[in-house]
């Protein structure tokens, strides 16, 4: 999904290095936990309170073993000083549950139709289509959710043309998204009338109807590649949820600069629930709407 997070190498050297095979000998002390907590907060913006201690310790021990670093001390040194940042990415992935399904974090779609689009429409001086970019597309749940939400909850869809472009680095997942075939798990949050209207039952699950499949453009993009992103301009809204937390500092900064250029002045970026622009960029204005906090490219800037 993320360009820097393709597949971190995982060794199992730890299995051979354990001195006590019955009980894990790797202990995370209270000081270790505090130290890790502060480091992880600085790097990812994710804060664990004391009640998460067990959850965090368990995953740390898992990574100490997987990397063969032998102890918290050795592992933390690797985490702090590894230039590639690969291990931090592997750990972030482990610490966050990244699953996608229809209408995930629905409050953001509500924010789109109730707050963002009315503001965008009011500002618009021409009849050019409203453009929405969903990256990463992943298997398509998010762009299709946006499409469904607009059709179901936004009256403006009868007056305005809307383009939805969904991009991902992974061509296999894009093919899957175009096909639009989903498991029961993926569609469980959809109201039944929505399911009936936009999906048809297939042997392998539920498939998005042809009209909807035709209405989203799927493209392959590596967000870290200037040549790939150059053509992406004039968007009114960008959904980039649960991707940037997996990027290293420089890639994250480059990505937010890319979004800046991809947006029309006044355009919005919606990030994931646990994400914040505070780790990557001060280019955007923080806007609070009743439903969500969203980042805006300032209007006045050219």
């Amino acid at each position: 999904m993320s360009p820097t997070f393709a597949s971190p190498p995982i060794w199992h050297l730890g299995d051979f290095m354990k001195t006590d095979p019955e009980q894990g000998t790797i202990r995370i002390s209270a000081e270790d936990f505090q130290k890790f907590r502060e480091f992880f907060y600085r790097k990812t913006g994710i804060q664990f309170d004391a009640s998460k201690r067990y959850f965090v310790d368990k995953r740390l021990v898992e990574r100490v073993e997987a990397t063969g670093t032998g102890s918290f001390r050795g592992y933390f040194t690797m985490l702090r000083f590894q230039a590639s940042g690969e291990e931090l990415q592997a750990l972030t992935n482990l610490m966050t549950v990244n699953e996608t399904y229809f209408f995930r974090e629905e409050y953001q779609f509500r924010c789109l139709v109730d707050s963002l689009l009315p503001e965008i429409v009011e500002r618009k001086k021409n009849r050019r289509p409203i453009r929405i970019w969903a990256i990463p597309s992943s298997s398509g749940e998010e762009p299709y959710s946006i499409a469904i939400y607009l059709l179901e909850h936004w009256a403006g869809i009868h007056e305005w043309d809307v383009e939805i472009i969904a991009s991902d680095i992974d061509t296999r997942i894009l093919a899957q998204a175009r096909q639009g075939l989903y498991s029961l798990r993926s569609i469980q949050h959809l109201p039944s009338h929505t399911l009936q209207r936009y999906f048809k039952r297939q042997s392998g699950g539920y498939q998005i109807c042809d009209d909807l499949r035709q209405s989203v453009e799927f493209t392959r993009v590596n967000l870290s590649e200037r040549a790939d992103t150059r053509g992406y301009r004039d968007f009114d809204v960008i959904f980039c949820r649960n991707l940037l937390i997996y990027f290293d500092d420089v890639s994250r900064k480059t990505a937010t600069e890319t979004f800046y250029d991809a947006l029309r002045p006044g355009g919005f970026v919606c990030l994931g629930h646990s994400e914040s622009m505070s780790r990557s960029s001060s280019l955007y204005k923080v806007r609070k709407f009743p439903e969500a906090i969203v980042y805006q490219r300032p209007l006045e800037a050219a």
Partner: protein
Amino acid sequence: MALIKTQCVEPIAEEAREAPRDCAGLISRLAASDPTARRWAARDLVDCPEAAAALVERLKQEVDVSVREVILTTLTSLGDPIAIAGLVDCLRSEDTALRNEAIEAMQQLPDAVAPVMHGLLADPDPDLRIFAVNILESLCHPQVETWLIEVIDQDPHVNVCGAAVDLLGEVGTRNARASLQRLKARFANEPYIRFAADLALGRLHEN
């Protein structure tokens, strides 16, 4: 009116990038009146190794924060001695945002920053020494702990030492123990130093 699909995603607006894509052309575009054009020029200059001086020059007068951020990203990618010298200059700026942008850029360049670190930590201006310690915060370099120990052993300024102790709580090993204890004695009347040194001592990586 409805959901529609365009056939291509090529940019509608090309005017911002009409200048030739050669390095000299890009450098001259850094002074364009349109910030979008300046931003694109700064971004594309990443392919021009000799562009650091021009970028640094532009950085010092650039008022548009979006252009500045891109210049700093490009300078980070170039990472040569001219880029580093330019970033060090930014640390002396009155502009807090520019200083912090320069610190972040330098954090990404351990090998290029290492040769100048000693000089920064010995600068007569205590604020500059604090910024140097701030660079160490996220620097991936084996000497980080050594530099921090030197700071807490030698620096006369309480806030420079305070910043260094904060980091030693994260990267310190047993090598820092004696120095942390000496620091506590040296600033016996500063509750903050006492607090920070005790915290760091409790977190040292010791086997």
